[in-house]
């Protein structure tokens, strides 16, 4: 079947199978930041924005995204660059495999709630697993970013 959608601001027309997952669709179009970490919607590595909302691309048919706006980290480099340095300053990126999903969902969090408490950060990012960092450094990084904005 043929679908049309907007991927990182660019109009895309593509032939897909009915069961092509959005995750595989965007990876096949060069959005390699999007990762698969499980098959059970538990890890959050495949997070993309669909019409601005964070969703799991592993559990979304590409067909359903037809007519919608899909954004991956490839399309949000500047918004990400604004805060990821603070994560790097903690060393909390570690292996990096979960980073894109985590960064995407953090972008969504900060758009929705620009001044979250620590508990709000934990709750919003609960669906993003990380096995390396122990999460605390990610939290410190986000907190440092938020503090720097207040000071700046």
């Amino acid at each position, binding site marked *: *079947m043929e679908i049309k959608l907007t991927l990182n601001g660019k109009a895309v027309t593509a032939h897909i199978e009915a069961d092509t997952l959005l995750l595989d669709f965007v990876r096949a179009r060069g959005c390699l930041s999007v990762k698969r970490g499980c098959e059970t919607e538990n890890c959050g590595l495949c997070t993309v924005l669909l019409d601005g909302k964070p*969703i799991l691309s592993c*559990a979304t*048919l590409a067909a359903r995204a037809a007519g919608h706006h899909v954004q991956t980290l490839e399309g949000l480099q500047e918004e990400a660059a604004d805060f990821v340095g603070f994560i790097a300053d903690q060393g909390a990126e570690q292996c990096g495999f979960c980073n894109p999903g985590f960064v995407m969902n953090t972008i969504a969090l900060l758009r929705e709630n620009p001044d979250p408490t620590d508990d709000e950060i934990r709750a919003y990012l609960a669906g993003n697993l990380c096995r390396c960092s122990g999460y605390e450094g990610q939290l410190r990084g986000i907190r440092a970013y938020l503090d720097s904005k207040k000071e700046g």
Partner: protein
Amino acid sequence: MLTIREYVRAKSLEEAYALAQKRNNVVLGGMGWLNLQKRNVGTAIDLCDLGLDAIEETETDYRVGAMVSLRAFEQHQGLQTLSQGAIAESLKGIVGVQFRNSATVGGSVYARFGFSDVTTILMALEAKVELYKAGVLTMEEFAALPRTQRDILVRIIIPKVRRSICYLSQRNTKTDIPVLTCAVVHREGETFAVVGACPRPAAIYPDGGVLAEGITEETARAFGGKVAAEAVFGSNSRSGADYRRKVAAVLVRRAALALKEQEG
């Protein structure tokens, strides 16, 4: 491994209904947990173009479209007020924000998962299920429908009734599926509990007069004991039946006492 041969965005409920009659066709909800199934789907029927992603308020009800996401459901101001935050409390442990942005209220109800927080809270809110053909049913009536009856879930209707409600769940980890779900509701002098994830689907347990004298430490305990004695519990990988029975008594008691607090 899930395979799908065709994908159709239904143009009308009638079209969706007609397609859904074939056994290997499936109506898509949010697709959450769909990957867990190993099946070959003929046609995946998507309701996303039917305007079912809205929450409408009438004089008497909130009408929650089948395609409303769990996230939109938990964030809706009116429903939050109506449920005193119990809806958000019931959904916060479901995986994560991204999952709840995809998962739909209709899909969660239609799947009739034994472990459903959504079913439990909707029963507590005395929600009704509107099916395209079968019409409006109570949650219990819907649960009792044979799975072979392939209807289309159109919306959930939540009556605007003044009530106090408290939702509690027991989970092995914070975002795991529940070992037990529980809501206690006080409305117009009546109190009842809903207990689910037993791991059977949720059911309603009236207080049967146990709380007639009001909610006290003793009567709440008696209510918990009564529900735990009446409900049927089973075992699965997350816990055994005995544990669920004990926790049911505790959660019902705590929720009842919390209601008393809320009501002051």
